[in-house]
């Protein structure tokens, strides 16, 4: 093993000699420069390698041949090896990224760069506290010089602020060091952490350790003493910023971590507090940013707060494992993603995130950009996700719920601005602009990206998954992303084939509810995917994303523990977001969708954590079987998360936008399949946890009302929509409300109703959304009043919609009636009469939108502009009729479906429905779907035949052959009564759909932004204000932690 | 020992006064010199604290070179001297 002191020797030696070497020419100097960086990297790799694979023990290296603490020593363990490897790697890559600038500035820039790297390595390696100070100064001064190197005003201003803050931090650091030295008589960190135990002067000790830590709090840029840092991130050359934000903070963080054992628990608590506060507040302030660099600055600061707090927690709770499980992945996630993103801002030099669309011209960079933004928002499989997951679980095992809440809140804010940036970048039209994609810069970013992925993989495999088969469903999506160059049709066929394969692989060894749901997902995905074959426009990512989403659904039901569940949930959220986002003008709507979804996901995670805290050994669904005061809170949190996904009343405001703005062949997936993911979650939750109740609160009852009101209000809103897809979206909301209502009954009959309604809704919404997709495909509009009379042009679509609305409205003889019948029987059996009334009201109101949908589009007067439209393509028609065939099958033989449902429900709740021949009996009533169908069919046929026989000669008439106020109308617009169809209804019952929820969430968002905006104003840009904050913070924290005597 | 104490207090007062002077005075050159004086007094105190090495360093670098660098910096930002508050 190479002595790490050679790192110092090589860097310093090269640095010192460079003035002479440069005499031999710039190229020689550059070569030497890179060679020494690579040599240093090689030393660190060698160490990391032997730690990873050769079981190397931590090694200590003294200097001067004298044992510590008399001499300074370097300590090189596994953690140090990781940190120096990462730092040296980014150093090499950063040098590549900055090579032009370095070349232009000359050998002096190389010296500064090398010595900065020296400082970073020293910070990580040294085990002496004063030596730490020296290396800190080396790092800082070299960084300052590099910051100011381009001599731009903003660089210089940022640099000066940085230096003054650094100067203040040094003052506190030195004061802390000398106090601790005077108390312990040593400067070695390890010996100091032992000697502090014997110190009598506790008060002075706590003052000393406070000052020591406080200087690091400044260096770690914690709120509010961090305005200077954000200004510096904003103003300084992104090459340096990326380097400093990644390596500088990592090294400083590590040195802080090293000295944590010295300080007392109170001070560790202070670190945790400040770190968490910074995480939330900085992310909150980030929401108002428009400059990407400043956004990244806020994000950096926030991430470091989180990492610092987590590290302090791991020391506090003496859980070394947590460092590797949570702190390190969080840090590395930030490390690579932040370096990469800052460097991308150096290529796309747009100071406004709304102008970033230009990055779409470079596909490589765009891909990296997406990956890194998703990594920063903590999505699986990136390391940030594993870190957050492990941290949250550990915190929950220690009952630190408030902290979990803070972390998740901060993460939500962060996702807020990062995804806003991503969303706008992916969609917004941009001014054509020449961007210099310097190949070496892109190369550097690509390397960082690969490193991020490697670390992701490492953490992915490091995590205990119990069974890797869970991830099988993602293979097709990933493969299709890889095969993005293939023609669309081939990718579509591949998708169909892989769905088929999934079905074969998974359905064969599942049972119970997972099998039931999975069958629906596989079948539905297969049928709905057929419609996507109609796509003509080339898209590199569509099928990949689609298959990832479908895979996530399959993985979701396949999951056997909450980790797998949550991963699938997150992937489902992201992929559906990206899919919705592909639609036209969808930025706002998809943003609202992802924010609600993430909020929901975080609530679920909170609930998981709460449940996990009761039983911190296992991760299986069994953890929900808790029976104490936490169970109710956990239930509320988790079910809130699921309710958001199912768009229950109050958290529904995203649904119409997301459904309507998604591409037309994507919406069926979301409505028919994705909304069932929330139902699946509910099922798993209720199966294991039941519905908790106390003496005063019966959650089942509350849940039933949520379901009933969702059904009613969703339906009410649907009838006033002009846009067909929005109408169907609210219809979905209402229909899913019934499912929740039925689930909350918690009886065999109720669950039978729920599952039946779910299948029913899946089939119908598939048909309706596909039919509408076909119509929109031909007419180019989703506004119903613009259409009319299309029945003659699109008879197949019309018929499909007609069957759809008959089924959805619950009119016998189609399946919808079965769902309603089961639901009411179950509700009355349960004794929930009022809910029954509400559900009934909802189901009658549903007629209104059903009629409106079919009337406004297909009936009435055809419009001139659609006189030549054709029937929708067969790609749309075929899947519709496959689904309709299934609807008819279950209508004629409801037993087929209900028996399957009984099979899975019976073991839990007992039988809900009994059978005599084809008649289903409940405790209240009976129903024979087959005879109903036969009778209705017979009457219908007989009457049709009668009319045919008796019918006099039919005269064909033209469109306007009607008499209207004694006049024959000429324009269809005058005669197609469709716009604001149910206006009287709105006048009478509009109060029911007053936009309380919408206003509420608008107020929430407005307040969040207002708070964000007023908070960020504390960063006035005036250096003296920042000095004031730093000093004030020192005083406040001093009195809080050390206290007045 | 008492004498030394007295000297220290006197020098301390002198240092504090010149530090205040350095902050209060409008003229930047006087300000720089005043800070130099603070360092100079500090180096004497170091001698009294039995720290001759520090004393030498403070005198040579803190009081000497540092002051000089400030003066050069002043020279380079000359036109600003009138407008400082």
């Amino acid at each position, binding site marked *: 093993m190479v002595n790490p002191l050679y790192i110092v020797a090589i860097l310093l030696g090269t640095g010192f000699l460079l003035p002479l070497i440069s005499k031999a020419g710039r190229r020689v100097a550059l070569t030497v420069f890179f060679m020494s960086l690579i040599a240093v990297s090689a030393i660190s790799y060698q160490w990391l390698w032997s730690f990873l694979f050769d079981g190397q023990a931590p090694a200590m290296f003294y200097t001067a041949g004298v044992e510590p603490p008399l001499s300074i020593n370097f300590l090189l363990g596994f953690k140090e090896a990781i940190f120096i490897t990462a730092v040296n790697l980014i150093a090499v890559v950063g040098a590549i990224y900055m090579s032009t600038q370095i070349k232009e500035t000359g050998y002096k820039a190389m010296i500064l760069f090398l010595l900065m790297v020296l400082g970073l390595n020293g910070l990580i390696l040294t085990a002496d506290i004063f030596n730490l100070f020296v290396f800190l100064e080396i790092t800082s001064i070299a960084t300052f010089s590099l910051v100011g190197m381009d001599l731009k005003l903003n660089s210089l201003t940022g640099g000066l602020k940085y230096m003054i803050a650094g100067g203040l931090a*040094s003052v506190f650091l030195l004061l802390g060091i000398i106090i601790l030295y005077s108390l312990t008589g040593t400067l070695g960190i390890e010996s100091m952490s032992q000697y502090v135990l014997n110190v009598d002067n506790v008060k002075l000790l706590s003052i000393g350790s406070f000052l020591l830590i406080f200087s690091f709090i400044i260096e770690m840029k914690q709120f509010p003493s961090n305005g200077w840092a954000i200004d510096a991130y904003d103003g300084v050359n992104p090459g340096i910023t990326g380097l400093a934000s990644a390596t500088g903070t990592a090294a400083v963080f590590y040195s802080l971590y090293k000295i944590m054992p010295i300080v007392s628990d109170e001070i560790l608590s202070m670190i945790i507090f400040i770190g968490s506060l910074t995480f939330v507040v900085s992310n909150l302030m980030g929401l108002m940013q428009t400059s990407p660099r400043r956004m990244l600055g806020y994000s950096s600061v926030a991430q470091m707060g989180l990492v610092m707090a987590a590290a302090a927690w791991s020391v506090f709770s003496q859980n070394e494992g947590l460092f590797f499980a949570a702190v390190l992945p969080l840090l590395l996630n930030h490390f690579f993603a932040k370096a990469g993103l800052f460097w991308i801002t150096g290529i796309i030099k747009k100071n406004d995130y709304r102008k970033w669309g230009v990055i779409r011209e470079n596909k490589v960079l765009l891909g990296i950009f997406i990956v890194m933004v998703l990594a920063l928002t903590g999505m699986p499989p990136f390391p940030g996700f594993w870190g957050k997951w492990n941290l949250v679980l550990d915190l929950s095992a220690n009952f630190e719920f408030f902290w979990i809440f803070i972390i998740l809140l901060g993460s939500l804010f962060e996702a807020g601005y990062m995804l806003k940036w991503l969303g706008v970048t992916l969609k917004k039209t941009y001014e054509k602009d020449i961007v210099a994609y310097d190949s070496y810069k892109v190369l550097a970013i690509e390397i960082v990206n690969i490193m991020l992925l490697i670390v992701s993989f490492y953490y992915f495999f490091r995590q205990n998954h119990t069974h890797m088969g869970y991830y099988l469903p993602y293979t097709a999506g990933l493969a299709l992303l890889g095969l993005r160059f293939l023609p669309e049709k081939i990718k579509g066929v591949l998708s169909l084939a892989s769905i088929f394969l999934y079905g074969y692989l998974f359905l064969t060894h599942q049972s119970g509810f997972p099998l039931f749901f999975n069958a629906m997902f596989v079948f539905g995905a297969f049928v709905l995917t057929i419609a996507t074959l109609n796509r003509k426009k080339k898209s590199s990512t569509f099928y990949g994303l689609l298959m990832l989403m479908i895979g996530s659904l399959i993985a979701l039901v396949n999951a056997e523990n909450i980790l797998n569940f949550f991963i699938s949930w997150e992937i489902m959220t992201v992929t559906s977001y990206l899919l919705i986002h592909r639609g036209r003008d969808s930025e706002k709507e998809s943003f609202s969708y992802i924010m609600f979804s993430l909020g929901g996901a975080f609530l679920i995670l909170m609930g998981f954590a709460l449940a996990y805290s009761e039983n911190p050994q296992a991760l299986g669904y069994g953890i929900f079987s808790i029976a104490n005061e936490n169970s109710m809170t956990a239930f509320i949190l988790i079910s809130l998360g699921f309710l958001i996904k199912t768009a229950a009343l109050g958290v529904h405001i995203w649904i119409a936008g997301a459904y309507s703005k998604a591409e037309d062949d994507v919406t069926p997936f979301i409505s028919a399949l994705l909304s069932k993911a929330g139902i699946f979650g509910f099922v798993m939750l209720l199966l294991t946890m039941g519905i908790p109740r106390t003496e005063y609160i019966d959650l089942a009852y509350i849940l039933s009302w949520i379901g009933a009101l969702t059904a009613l209000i969703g339906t009410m809103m649907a009838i006033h929509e002009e846009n067909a897809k929005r109408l169907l979206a609210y219809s979905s909301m209402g229909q899913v409300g019934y499912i929740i209502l039925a689930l909350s009954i918690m009886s065999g009959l109720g669950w039978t109703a729920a599952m039946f309604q779910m299948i029913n809704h899946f089939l119908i919404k598939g048909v309706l959304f596909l039919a509408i997709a076909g119509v929109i495909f031909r007419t180019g509009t989703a506004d119903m009043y613009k259409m009319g009379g299309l029945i003659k042009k699109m008879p197949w679509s019309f018929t499909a919609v007609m069957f759809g609305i008959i089924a959805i409205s619950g009119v016998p003889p189609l399946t919808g009636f079965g769902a309603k019948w089961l639901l009411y029987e179950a509700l009355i059996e349960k004794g929930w009469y009022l809910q029954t009334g509400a559900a009934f009201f909802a189901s009658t109101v549903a007629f209104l939108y059903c009629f409106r949908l079919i009337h406004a589009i297909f009936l009435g007067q055809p419009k001139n502009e659609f006189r030549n439209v054709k029937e929708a393509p067969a790609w749309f028609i075929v899947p519709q009729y496959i689904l309709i065939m299934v609807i008819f099958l279950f209508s004629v033989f409801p037993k087929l479906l209900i028996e399957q449902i009984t099979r899975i429900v019976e073991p839990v709740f007992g039988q809900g429905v009994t059978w005599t021949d084809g008649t289903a009996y409940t405790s209240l009533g009976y129903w024979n779907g087959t005879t109903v169908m036969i009778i209705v069919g017979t009457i219908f046929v007989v009457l049709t035949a009668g009319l045919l026989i008796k019918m006099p000669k039919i005269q064909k008439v033209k469109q306007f052959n009607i008499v209207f106020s004694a006049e024959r109308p000429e324009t269809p617009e005058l005669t197609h009564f469709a716009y604001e169809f149910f206006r009287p209804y709105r006048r009478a019952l509009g109060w029911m759909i007053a936009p309380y929820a919408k206003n509420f969430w608008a107020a929430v968002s407005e307040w969040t932004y207002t708070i964000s905006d007023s908070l960020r104003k504390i960063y006035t840009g005036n250096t003296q204000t920042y000095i004031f904050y730093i000093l004030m913070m020192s005083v406040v924290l001093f009195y809080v932690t050390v206290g007045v005597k | 020992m008492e004498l030394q104490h007295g000297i220290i207090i006197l020098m301390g007062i002198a240092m504090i006064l010149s530090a205040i002077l350095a902050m209060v005075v409008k003229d930047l050159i006087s300000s720089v010199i005043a800070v130099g004086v603070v360092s100079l007094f500090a180096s004497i105190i170091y001698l009294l604290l039995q720290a001759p090495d520090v004393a030498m360093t403070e005198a040579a670098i803190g009081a000497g070179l540092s002051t000089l660098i400030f003066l050069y910096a002043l020279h380079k930002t000359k036109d*600003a001297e009138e407008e400082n508050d």
Partner: protein
Amino acid sequence: MNIIHIIGFILMIIGFWGLLTQKNMIKIVLALAIVETGLQLVMVTFGFIKGHTAPILDSSELVKGAAEMIVDPVPQALVLTAIVIGVAVNALMLTFVIRLYQKKKTLSITEYKDLKW
């Protein structure tokens, strides 16, 4: 408990005062220098032991009984380093000030607020 500690702390406070109130950037750097001087005084004083002599062993008794006779040399060594580093930082800061001055022709720190929020 030493009077020099008080002197050092007062110097630091004066320096902080300057940092907070002086608008001229050169004065801010000067203020930081005062803070550093005060801090260095405090540090050296921490190593002072009443009645002990400087850590230079120029007589044989001193060599033998050094541990009982000399003041603590470590703070001195640390301050030595701190002074040099302080000057280096100040010099660099001044060059920033010079460059900034060349950009905007003013030394008032309140004029350099382009980066904010």
